């Protein structure tokens, strides 16, 4: 059957005209978001003075505050079945993803595949994903930082001194161990992203969550490692694959919402271990 959306009963997830993934919440018409990929160009310099410091393994430092968009030149296909519905999307030659919704699960999975990042143009690139929602977050977002305590972050702000940022992108990036979210200032709405590894993240515009996915840089940042973050395997740059769980909605019943979030976070970090044994006759009663 020809179809152009997934999402089961909870969501309507489509690929919009620009190639971005558009998510509409079916039961909460006032909430939606769009997912898209972008990149920054890494700063390059001789590291002699602060202004000439390169972006590298230790520091993220884009060349300018300009975020670059990708031209979505790929295609997509849809898989639907009794257990899972998926959009398989190719963004370009080296970025693709699977967007997935399982039956009986409320999370939306974004399984991204990035690389090898091309550097033939001698420009280091740092690829990010953005979830742009209609929430009015008023410059505030939350990160779990060291995995112990979730902290409120405010764009272009530090709680104990007057801040003037000369590098607004890098200055607003914070560590995300497992979770990052934002809340609407006026309505009981929340949008959370759970990562499967530690990443860096920010919210450069209201309603937006941005996470760094993969970096390939051509200069050392002179903080000690003595190598550019230019990992190579099989004679080409690395390919990375990972998953974001996105979960959001109405927080009127905050206890239930928080409980679901905690379960999701544990599911990501303490996934079941799968062991395979060749088929053989066994005493099934014993195994039971």
């Amino acid at each position, binding site marked *: 059957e020809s179809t152009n959306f997934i999402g089961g009963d909870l969501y309507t997830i489509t690929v919009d005209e620009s190639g971005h993934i558009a998510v509409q919440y079916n039961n909460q018409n006032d909430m939606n978001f769009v997912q898209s990929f972008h990149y920054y160009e890494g700063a390059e310099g001789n590291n002699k003075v602060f202004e000439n410091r390169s972006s590298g*393994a*230790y520091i993220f430092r884009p060349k300018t505050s300009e975020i670059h968009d990708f031209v979505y030149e790929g295609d997509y296909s849809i*898989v639907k*079945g*009794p*257990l*899972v519905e*998926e959009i*398989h999307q*190719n963004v370009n030659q080296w970025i*693709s993803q*699977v967007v997935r919704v*399982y*039956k*009986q*699960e409320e999370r939306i999975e974004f399984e991204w*595949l990035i690389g*090898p990042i091309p550097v033939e143009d001698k420009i280091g690139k740092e690829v990010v994903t953005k979830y742009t929602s209609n929430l009015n977050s008023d410059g505030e977002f939350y990160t779990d930082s060291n995995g112990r305590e979730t902290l409120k972050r405010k764009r272009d702000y530090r709680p104990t001194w007057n801040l003037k940022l000369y590098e607004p992108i890098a200055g607003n990036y914070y560590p995300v161990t497992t979770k990052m979210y934002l809340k609407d200032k006026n309505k009981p709405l929340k949008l959370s992203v759970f990562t499967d590894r530690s990443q860096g993240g920010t919210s450069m515009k209201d309603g937006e969550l941005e996470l760094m996915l993969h970096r390939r840089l051509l200069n050392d940042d002179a*903080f*000690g*490692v*003595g*190598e550019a973050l230019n*990992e190579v*395997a*099989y*004679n*080409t740059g690395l*390919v990375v*694959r*990972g998953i974001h769980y996105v979960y959001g909605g109405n927080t009127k019943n905050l206890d239930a919402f928080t409980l679901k979030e905690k379960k999701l976070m*544990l*599911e990501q970090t*303490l*996934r*079941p*271990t*799968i*062991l*395979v*044994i*060749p*088929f*053989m006759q*066994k*005493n*099934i009663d*014993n*195994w*039971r």
Partner: protein
Amino acid sequence: IENLEKFREAMGVMQHHDAVTGTEKQLVANDYARLLYENLVNNNIVAANSIYKWANEKNSTTKLIVSSCLELNISSCPYTENSRQFTLIIYNPQSQPVSTYVRLPVNGSSYEVFDWAEDISILSQIVPIPKRVLQIPGRESKATNELVFRVNDLPPLGYKVYEVTEKPNTYEETPS
């Protein structure tokens, strides 16, 4: 105990700040990968012994061979994609019951998944692996599909056993 001790030592090394953040030199990163891989594989023996004990089969004459799928992140697992029939032990490391989905790289297009605990065949789905994943440099896998099924009520710090059997194709392919 010796295997476990080596694993503990490897995990100790992995707590160095360079290993946590990825700011180690490339050669060191390669060595960390080697350390982790060797110890994960060696600990299959520890896992096999534990499972045999739980299953009251420690006196069995059949040697239990347990393998872990370390490349599931790139939809690759030689043990599931090269077998028509295999048994899965799914262990829950959480201290609370969990229901979740399992995805296994396979070659065939139709499988029966049998839940030993419930004594029933359960619903499963075949999903094609995206082309870009098949093209990941260095990926040596024949799997073209993933078998998806739901694992219900995995006990806390416990396991469930599933048997997977490939079914013959029930449809005829048309030339087009």
